[in-house]
């Protein structure tokens, strides 16, 4: 009898919790489980705690870390929010700034303004608006900048300012190129050599398996921008929405097709605007690339062995004719 009583009350409790959750989801877009298990969720997915919209909105004032923090980035330009840096090495493809906060009041919009101090101290280099969901939990807000083409961020000094409305929340500066990439220690070099030798041996042992070229990092000083236009060869009219692709060095268009067009083999990709024009950064001089252009209703075009030499201009002008 007592057991049945307990079960009935537990059932009622579960029902009330479910009802509460439904109300909260409807009202605030966040489930009760977040309140109960928010920490656990945050542990399983660190990015989740950044500005997750939690239900409780008891935050009166947002306190933030000052100066702003700069976070390390991975080779692919993704932020590593666990590592704060003072400067970035040359060739880094993204810089990420942010701050830690104690909580977020309702209707908080943060504006991040990045300045390139080498170009103009007054003219913002990049701005971004971030709408934050209210929460009473501490977290980290970040905003990174990078080129789509993964072109390295130019060496120099950068500043970030975070605003809420017109009020400056926090700011900070960082240098790119302040430290050189670490040279491998002699022992590491030996290990690396050994690994390379092993890799070569494996390649010899498995000749039937084609070795795919490894990605290489472009040299920043050698980079040029391609300014192009994709046009219909029969009418010389622009083709809006045509796609222009530069493949990773060492991958030919035929290989790319054979592999099933994997996105990982693409160095950069760009879509032509309404005038058929595109700008493509991140192409290195004296490196052979394969180019691909494609548009709906047209025969695809490709070219292997495309090289921008030392004598070619930057930006490098290019027209591509496609035919039906």
């Amino acid at each position: 009898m007592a057991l049945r009583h307990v079960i009935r009350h537990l059932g009622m409790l579960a029902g009330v919790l479910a009802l509460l959750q439904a109300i909260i989801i409807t009202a605030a877009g966040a489930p009760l489980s977040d309140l109960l298990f928010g920490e656990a969720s945050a542990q399983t997915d660190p990015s989740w705690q950044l500005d997750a919209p939690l239900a409780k909105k008891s935050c009166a004032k947002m306190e933030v870390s000052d100066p702003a923090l700069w976070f390390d980035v991975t080779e692919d330009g993704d932020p590593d929010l666990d590592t704060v840096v003072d400067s970035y090495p040359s060739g880094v493809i993204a810089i990420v700034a942010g701050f830690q906060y104690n909580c977020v009041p309702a209707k908080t919009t943060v504006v991040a303004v990045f300045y390139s101090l080498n170009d103009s101290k007054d003219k913002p280099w990049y701005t971004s608006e971030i709408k934050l969901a209210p929460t009473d939990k501490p977290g980290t807000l970040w905003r990174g900048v990078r080129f789509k083409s993964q072109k390295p961020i130019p060496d120099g000094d950068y500043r970030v300012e975070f605003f809420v409305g017109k009020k400056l929340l926090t700011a900070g500066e960082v240098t790119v190129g302040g430290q050189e990439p670490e040279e491998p220690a002699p022992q590491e070099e030996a290990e690396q050599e050994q690994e390379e030798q092993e890799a070569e041996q494996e390649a010899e042992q498995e000749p039937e398996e084609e070795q795919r070229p490894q990605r290489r990092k472009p040299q920043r000083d050698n980079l040029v921008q391609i300014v192009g236009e994709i046009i219909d060869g029969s009418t010389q009219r622009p083709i809006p929405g045509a796609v222009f692709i530069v493949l990773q060095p060492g991958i030919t268009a035929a290989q790319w097709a054979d592999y099933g067009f994997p996105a990982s083999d693409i160095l950069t990709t760009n879509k032509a605007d309404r005038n058929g024009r595109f700008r493509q950064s991140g192409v290195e001089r004296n490196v052979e690339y394969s180019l691909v252009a494609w548009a709906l209703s047209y025969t695809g075009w490709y070219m292997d062995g495309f090289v921008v030499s030392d004598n070619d201009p930057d930006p490098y002008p290019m027209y591509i004719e496609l035919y039906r």
Partner: protein
Amino acid sequence: MRRGVWLASGLTLLLLIIFIAIVVGIDVALQPRLTGLELILVGILLALVPAGLWLALFYLQDRLEPEPKAEVVRIFIIGLALGGAFGLPLVQQVFRLPEWQYRDLSATVLGAIFIAGAVEAFIIYAAVRFFIYHSPQFNERTDGVIYGTAAGLGYATALNVQLILASGGAAIAASEVHMAGIALAHAAFGGVLGYFLGRAKLEREPVWWLPAGLLLTAVLIGLFTLLRTQVQQGRLLTGTITYLPSVTGFLLAAALALVVALVIIWLMRRDTSLALGGRRAAPTLDATIGDRAANWAVIGLFVLCLVVGGLVWDRTVHRSSAFDVDGFRGSYPAHFSLATRPDEILRVVDVLDTQAQFVISVVSDVQPTMLGSVISQLTAVRATEYESYRVLDTQERQWRGRPILEQHFAGVEPPALEPTLPRLLEGVDYIVADGNRAVVITMIADPETYDTVEPLFLRFLETLTF
């Protein structure tokens, strides 16, 4: 044999080459800057030049062996009208051939044969068969070639005018080279079918004769399309040099026209000598010989071609690649590329066209009743990843007997420093409860292509099992 028609055709080719040289010369020397309506009108005028030349020369050459000129012009106009009113809409709007024809080589060839080729061949056939075939003016085998060529030129002119109108005008030199090539090629196709029609009218041919002519013409069109895509694949122009228009397509068409003309002349001479030698029944003026059975056979073959073309279309558009990753099985459109990131089950991207993405990811430790927490997690990640992110609507649904949340969202693509307009993205998440985890199946696409991509995504969902 009617010398007039061959002289007219040969001279048309010669004069077209001279005309093209003059137009290219004017274009390079004067570099006229035409825009808007002027550009369109000049383009349409140039589209009429190849057909106009042939008709004018035919008129001049045929004076001694009179053929009613009005009938030739009438068949040209009928070919143009049928092409513009039925042929091109059927190929481009109904079968949407240009959208999938260049996805792979087999689609290029089969689409060109069974849709573009069959439609064009049938229109040439219809223009001749239903508008001049039974006329007493159609009294020589060469007449079939003349009227077939006129109908083919009409269809080519419809193609060229449509190109000009759809492009909002065209550069003078490049477009004239292109349009002259189109006219030559399609005149040749018309001539081939016309030869079959001429013999069907004036000799006793079996029922399969006319369908064979239609099929051969359609196959020729398909092979020509294949050859053209192989030799004219686009080109890269760099620097500030003024480039002359590519003449590869024109030369190919001219060669085709020449070969077709020579083959037809040879066939007709052979037919004449056979008839004179008594080895073939003499030509007859009985107009009833082109019998109904052959006509119905042509119509049946045309319908069959369209059915085959439809199957090719379906196979090309819905071709898929299978995947089997961590217990997730299914297939995605074959023209999508793999782009899976380390923390995902699958990500495929339509790199070459819409840039749409289908993504499967898993969120651990989520009870079925707590699916809403996944929405919060996605919002948290995307709010920072995207330049701007907004959930448009969320609704609870059942999917294959499982409770799911369907969430529609929009965002501006992740921040980048390139001086280009940021792209707006639209997407949908299917958040599916699966034991103590949630499976998130996402589609991301441009708003402009969302409707095109959505059916592919629904098909992707249909194939998915886990």
